[in-house]
């Protein structure tokens, strides 16, 4: 956990921005390893379909495929930690450059603090940098346990899938297969939640860094209010994670029912729906980041041109 926290530690302001981050190349290598795992599973599927391998091999090919997806998602999480580090280096660069770039202007006399309109939506005008929003503070804490637990569950699911392949007793096989699916997809849901929390951490950094730069210049602080897309992102994220946990519990029940085929028929789409909803939330988080970046560039331009 400490090692993970170290990944996103803010570098000192004098840190050399030209230095490349090693985490980027590591993340690409991890992603490639994930694609390789899924390729091996594809070969297994083709062998089963052509009759060159027994049907029970499909259990481990399933486990290996989902482990491959989890590996690529872990790579994505690593890239996001690199983005967080780079964002802070950008904040330090803007903070260092703006005092020499901004127009000279007399201090503003009568400032009306409160709500404002910006080209990127509603914002606030304050004297000091506003603190983090509660979901952003939570995101900064929660991404770490999610990124640790997700891969652990996926690996456990892979082991269960291998055990299912070798199981002879039908009851044991049914139970192991149910737990395999539930565990793998709970791990995937946690990984996607970790990625969502990392995106929330990026939004936190943008808010905090933007406020810090404006305050350091002695200017009024303009901050974008939480956009609707960010609110809907939170709803999607929590719904997706809850469904991910629910499918795990339901697979636990399906492990011991008399008609597992019926249960598996609707639990399959349910587990995919949980990941689909989490991914939809990620789309909205990325959209929000784009909006906030647009606002930040607009505000930097305004400071350069008007000095206020």
């Amino acid at each position: 956990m400490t090692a993970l926290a170290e990944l996103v530690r803010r570098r000192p302001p004098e840190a050399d921005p030209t230095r490349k981050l090693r985490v980027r190349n590591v993340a690409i290598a991890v992603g490639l390893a994930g694609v390789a795992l899924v390729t091996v599973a594809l070969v297994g599927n083709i062998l089963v379909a052509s009759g060159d391998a027994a049907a029970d091999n499909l259990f481990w090919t399933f486990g290996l495929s989902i482990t491959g997806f989890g590996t690529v998602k872990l790579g994505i999480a690593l890239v996001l930690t690199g983005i967080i580090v780079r964002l802070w280096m950008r904040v330090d660069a803007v903070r260092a450059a703006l005092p020499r770039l901004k127009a000279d202007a007399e201090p503003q006399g009568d400032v009306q603090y409160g709500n404002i309109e910006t080209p990127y939506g509603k914002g606030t005008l304050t004297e000091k940098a506003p603190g983090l929003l509660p979901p952003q503070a939570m995101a900064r804490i929660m991404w770490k346990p999610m990124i640790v637990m997700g891969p652990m569950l996926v690996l456990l699911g892979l082991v269960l899938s291998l055990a299912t392949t070798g199981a002879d007793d039908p009851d044991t096989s049914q139970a192991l297969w149910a737990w395999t699916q539930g565990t793998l997809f709970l791990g995937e849901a946690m990984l996607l939640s970790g990625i969502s929390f990392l995106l929330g951490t990026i939004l936190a950094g943008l808010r905090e860094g933007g406020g810090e730069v404006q305050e350091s210049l002695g200017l009024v602080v303009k901050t974008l209010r939480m956009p609707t897309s960010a609110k809907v992102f939170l709803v999607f994220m929590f719904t997706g994670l809850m469904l991910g946990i629910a499918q795990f519990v339901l697979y636990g029940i399906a492990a011991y029912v008399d008609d597992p085929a019926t249960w598996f028929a609707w639990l399959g789409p349910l587990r995919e729906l949980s990941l689909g909803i989490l991914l939809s939330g990620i789309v909205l988080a990325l959209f929000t980041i784009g909006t906030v970046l647009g606002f930040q560039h607009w505000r930097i331009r305004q400071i350069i041109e008007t000095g206020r």
Partner: protein
Amino acid sequence: MATALARADFKVETSTRSLGYNLPQRMGRLLWFPMFLMALMFFGAGMALGIARANEISDGGAADTIVTLQHVQAGLMFLGFVSVFSAVSFAIARILGQFRAGGGEVQAAAGRTVQTLKMPGTAKVFLMLMLVAMMTIVVASILHFVFAADIENTPASLADAEDRFVVLEGVRRIGTAIFLFAILLGLATIIRVLRFQAVRMRELPDEATTH
């Protein structure tokens, strides 16, 4: 008009104004939302068919109906995934567009030469892999529908349908893995763009104004 500039650390184009968004970024700004909506629709339809198939199994329905539903449901669900992955990719392109257009506007506002990063290699591979993965999953999903229409209630047809499902499952998964890797490369491009912005921002105060 933009001209190429040789820098030791980055490949850039120079101009007096922001170069704005490039074609993939304009597409990203336009298409992320339709893709997002389509994903939600396909996920809902896939879930509904999953429930319908479970009812068929529970009621002892015909084997060909159950296998047909399996193919159609998987096809719909993965059209949902291809839509949501596309939406993620377009949202990343939109972010890269904000850096390109916004970064240029900031340099122009400061009266300095506008330097814009040329499309990095990771961004080019991101676009290429995104298209490959999209085609792989879409073709696999369409084949699910084609094979579903071909199923009869005979042991041979049902066995064929089962084998086809197993192969298409593998193909869909490799398409998904490639799409996820493309997204990783898109995000890795953001790291490079952020590095360029931090370096460029620190250079600006010491440069002479040009306009």
